């Protein structure tokens, strides 16, 4: 099990990660989702021992990254962001070097190499120099070096960036497959990627966790709410709020007024339906309803909402 506890990481004055805590269970695929610069990579770099936390700690089983970094590194297979490789090396030599570094002996290396070549589709490029490979193949080599020692934990930082759609589908399938037996943390700024591979996702924004749960949980959390967009003429918010008071749980989440037309967005649980009340109230006050539309939330709305909201609150 991996546990990140109250993790803070600053780069000078820049607060990259602000007090993050979460757990990853054994055998779980955790998706780490967030816009660019949200602190995903920094968190992963702390887990893998490349950076030390400013405060807080990361625990893997009974060990922590500050004192037992070496032992933890042995358990982890890591594909860093941008997939750095030694471009002057042959694929075979490179994988052999990693295997030796991972304390795999010669006979085991032979069998593992065969498996990894099969898994990552590296047949035919094993004796090529890495700098002759296309980006897709480089990514496969990066994945191959991360899994060659059959690690318990696999950490993949943007594993499909720069790949073409076919390769992306392939790599996602591979990750899903590997995740059956391993604990996997996969980071991405692309929602579909996490949706396609992860059991659970953590949405991170501006160094803070914005949401944490299974995809179904996140969907129902937000799907439980309906958003109602209203455009009213001659209306005022004070009077509109009287409508809400009839219904517990209706919230006026945003409103604006321009040229006598008020635009308002209401949020309420699915169990409620205030539309009829609004209509009668409008008729009574001689308001003109220009628009009244319900909006269903998708996972993408949730993601955008969480990350954009964070941006505006942080900007204050």
């Amino acid at each position: 099990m991996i546990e990140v506890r109250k993790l803070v990481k600053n780069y000078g004055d820049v607060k990259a990660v602000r007090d993050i805590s979460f757990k990853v269970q054994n055998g779980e695929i955790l998706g780490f989702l967030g816009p660019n610069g949200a602190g995903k990579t920094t968190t992963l770099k702390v887990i893998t021992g490349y950076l030390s936390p400013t405060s807080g700690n990361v625990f893997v089983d009974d060990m922590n990254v500050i004192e037992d970094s070496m032992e933890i590194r042995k358990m982890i297979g890591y594909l860093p962001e941008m997939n750095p490789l030694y471009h002057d090396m042959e694929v075979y030599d490179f994988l052999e070097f990693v295997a030796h570094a991972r304390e795999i002996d010669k006979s085991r290396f032979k069998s593992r190499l065969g498996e990894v070549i099969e898994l990552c589709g590296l047949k035919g490029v094993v004796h090529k120099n890495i700098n002759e490979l296309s980006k897709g193949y480089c990514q496969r080599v990066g994945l191959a070096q991360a899994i060659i020692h059959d690690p318990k934990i696999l950490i993949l930082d943007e594993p499909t960036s720069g790949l073409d759609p076919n390769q992306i589908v392939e790599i996602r399938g591979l990750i899903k497959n590997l995740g059956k037996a391993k604990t996997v943390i996969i980071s991405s700024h692309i929602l579909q990627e996490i949706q396609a591979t992860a059991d659970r996702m953590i949405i991170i924004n501006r160094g803070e966790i914005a949401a944490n749960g299974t995809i179904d949980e996140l969907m129902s959390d937000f799907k439980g709410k309906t958003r109602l967009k209203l455009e009213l003429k001659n209306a005022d918010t004070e009077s509109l709020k009287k409508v809400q008071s009839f219904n517990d749980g209706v919230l006026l989440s945003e409103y604006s007024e321009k040229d006598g037309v008020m635009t308002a967005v209401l949020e309420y649980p699915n169990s409620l339906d205030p539309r009829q009340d609004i209509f009668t109230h409008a008729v009574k006050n001689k308001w003109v309803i220009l628009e009244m539309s319900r909006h269903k939330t998708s996972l993408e709305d949730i993601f955008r909402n969480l990350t954009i909201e964070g941006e505006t609150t942080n900007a204050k």
Partner: protein
Amino acid sequence: MRNNFKILYRKEVQSFFNSPVAYITLVVFLLINAWFFTSTFFLTNESDLRTLFTVAPIVFIFFIPAITMGLIAKEKNTGTLEFITTLPFSDGEIVIAKFLAALTLVATALLFTTVHFFTLLIVGNNIDMGALISGYLGLLLVGAAYTAIGTFASSVTDNQITAFIISFSIIFVLFILDKILVFVPGFLSSFLQYLSIDYHLSNISRGVIDSRNLVYLGSIILFFLLMSIRILEMRKWR
């Protein structure tokens, strides 16, 4: 532990000999030495390698920074530093393996200069073997000190050219110190002389192996290697 060194060392040596830079610098080093040595050898008519022992350390000032500039700077630049430091290697193992690999290249260069040594054996007489051996020992030690400085310079930047300039400058200052003694006040001169690499080297090349000289060179190597390790570790806290 020792196994980790072997794995890293092998990779570093391999990467040296995979790139043309090693061969080019090696050839240039040998050509320059050979030119200075053979052009005067038969004129002076002396059975020693003094020209080699004077010229080689000067050529080292360019040669060794060129070898060491990529050691860590290149890994920083291409991002592979993150890859290698998240493998189960300690930062110390990484730095020392790199240092030893670069030193191997320096030693290889010195090995090729023994062609002059054999020429001397064939044509010379009354050869002072002790002085020749201690001369080579001196070159190797000074080479190691320069390599440690180069490793340090390579660890402070991600730009190989910057690394070259930094190591060249440090080495040059240490080399020139005992040549500017006439310009400094007397109380400083013995101190500066002790800091000068060439002063210690000239003792060793004369065949006088004094513990003072060994301690000096040993401290330079140790100091710069420890600094490189510290700087590599500092990435964690930046």
